[in-house]
């Protein structure tokens, strides 16, 4: 199999790393080669975060080049728009509809564009919006948005849903197992 490129975008603190880890571990369990890379450091302080997961028979670079991503998963609409150019022609974007103000907007230096979703739709014919926060709430924890988003793309990945569920259960603790699995399945049902 050729390399399948996944880009995950979001805001520092949203659990992009955990979502990336779930996909990377699932690929390893499926006998694939995998490289996962996201840049952290300053990003933790509410900055924009982008993570790459590359899976396939043999993966060299840990970096996804613009124009080559099979799928873009974004935990925030503005971040989906920001990284939309990573998608290859015909690539798919799935994003959570809940907006988070960047500090530039919160301090009145910039406006959050009102037409973000329309812009995404205009630029990508394969775009899907997910009510990730309400699904996460239903699952029992607003912080499970990341698992909702993983669930929402599960059927588009070259990975078995059962393997992903197994990894989520393995990586979660205590009550989190139930919440995260519910969030994952809720995301899958909404897709």
């Amino acid at each position, binding site marked *: 199999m050729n390399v399948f490129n996944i880009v995950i975008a979001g*805001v*520092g603190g949203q659990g992009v790393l955990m979502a990336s*880890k779930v996909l*990377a*571990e699932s690929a*390893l369990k499926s006998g694939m*080669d*995998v*490289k*996962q*890379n*996201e*840049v*952290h*450091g*300053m*990003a*933790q*302080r*509410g*900055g*924009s975060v982008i993570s790459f997961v590359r899976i396939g028979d043999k*993966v*060299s*670079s*840990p*970096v996804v*080049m*613009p*124009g*080559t991503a099979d799928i873009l998963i974004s935990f925030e609409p*503005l*971040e989906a*728009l*920001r990284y*939309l*150019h*990573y*998608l*290859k*022609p015909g690539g798919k974007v799935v994003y959570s509809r809940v907006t*988070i*103000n*960047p*500090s*530039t*907007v*919160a*301090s*009145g*230096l*910039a*406006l*959050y*564009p*009102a037409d973000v979703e329309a*812009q995404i739709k205009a*630029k990508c014919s394969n775009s899907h919006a997910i009510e990730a926060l309400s699904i996460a709430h239903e699952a029992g924890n*607003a912080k499970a948005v990341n698992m909702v988003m993983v669930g929402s793309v599960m059927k588009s990945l070259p990975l078995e849903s059962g393997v992903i569920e197994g990894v989520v259960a393995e990586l979660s603790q205590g009550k989190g197992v139930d919440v995260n699995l519910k969030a994952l399945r809720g995301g899958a049902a909404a897709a």
Partner: protein
Amino acid sequence: MKKIISGNEAIALSFGDSGGVFASGYPGTPSTETLEEVARLGEVYCEWAPNEKVALESAIGASIAGGRSLSTMKHVGVNVAADALMTLTYTGVNAGLILMVADDPGMHSSQNEQDSRNYAKFAKVPMLDPADSQEAYDFVRAGFEISEQFDTPVMLRTTTRISHAKGVVEQTAKIQPKVGEWVRNVPKYVMLPNFGKIKHVEVEARLLKLQEFAESSPLNRVEMGDKALGIITSGVSYQHVKEAYPNASVLKLGLVHPLPMNKIREFAGSVKRLMIVEEMDAIFEEQIRAAGVRVDIGKDRISLCGEVSADIVRAAAGDAVAKSAAPVEGLPQRPPTFCPGCAHRGLFSILSKLKAFVSGDIGCYTLGALPPMSAMHSTICMGASISAAHGMAKVNEIAGRTEKPVAVIGDSTFFHSGITGLLSMAYNKSNALVIIMDNRTTGMTGGQENPGSGRVLQGEPAGQVNIKDLVKVLGVEHVVEINTYDLAATEAAIKKGLETPGPYVLIDKNPCILRYRVKKPTIAVNQDTCTGCRACLKAACVALGLTASGDKPKVRIDPNICNGCGVCSQLCKFDAMSEA
């Protein structure tokens, strides 16, 4: 068993598997997780040192005492440790010693872009440059072997895309750690000039032997493919090369200093076009050209700045890259910012209001330089806030200017290299104000312990430095504690500090809300009394936002994000904000 781990985790794992005994470092992105992982694995002694010089010197002592040792730091940390490194290369080692340095091309979280391969040349020590997590794991083992075989420290260099990228790793058989003899050898370890002269000759001879080793070592391998294009590369650049040209001939260097020049010459002669792909400086290219080897593509086509990518490699060789839509322009930036509830927010609100000249330092508080605070006017390196403010104060004095500079520094940075600057301030009678933001953690790198946090790396209790007492002992007469959540009191304290002649130190002791999980009752906006004046937005807090409707939008606070620090409500002139 196969695992997916980062380069940093791989180095930590291999350190434990390769007979490691002692590890010491200072946090710095992208190196930090290495020692944290050594601690998590729990098999080998490890510690945070107050700075990189202390870390490396401690590793030297551990080596002399017979234990394989590791010192970890980011690229700029080597500048601090360089004094030790430049003589360590003369003494050599007893047990193996690895200095792990993590470079940050592209400056994801650094103040400069520094190619540590220069240090390997400068110090005349071997350097290993792994290309993925598996090599990061393997090169620790190889590094200790080279260190002991050639009696030399070994530098293990990563970059952000090696340290933080995760890949599949398989462990090799564990070597049980054994501590060797605590060696006494005066001519080897006492670098008086007469002994140093002998050692320098040995260093040069060692380098020649290492060069011979590099020629035949499997660390440097040729992957012969299509001979139309031959590429010499190392580290993560190798991965970009494989991505760009899976079938090209490649000479992959694992040992990047000293270079295997015969192997390079032979490789160059076997390919039609020779390309050198290296991030940052032209270290390979300069040496290869100096050896009289023809280079067809190098730094003339690949920038000295930033990271390399598969697209950059292809473009440099004159080939097409995958077409992508242009990034959407004009979107609001999402830079990192102070966390909701952070104690730095109150301080910078006041410094911004007072328009003071702020001499900054390395830490979360450097974000105070960004708009709308825009309250930092210089940031050079760890500790420079205080020493630079001192220089400013002296010139101000000479020029007859009465304005006092304000140095802002955090606790960990103060311990790292702020103490000596303050000593100079007290000793040389500086007319400056120093504000120490003592949040009891090394915040920017993710909340590591330090000599003031009361815990060691593993989390066990430790002594806690009392910064106020320490400042007094250094000779500063005026030391006052402040609470930056109280804006009026903070403003008054800063004004007093600016008006009082001589060195003046303010200390804020509010803990890092992220590290200590501080959660306060949230603030809400009374929509009837809010006038939409936006004064509160100067707090630059992501919990704040404007309501979408109306010709004069009002402010609302997202209760999921607000951490109740109350800075915005103190900036409000209409009493429209209160606890929810």
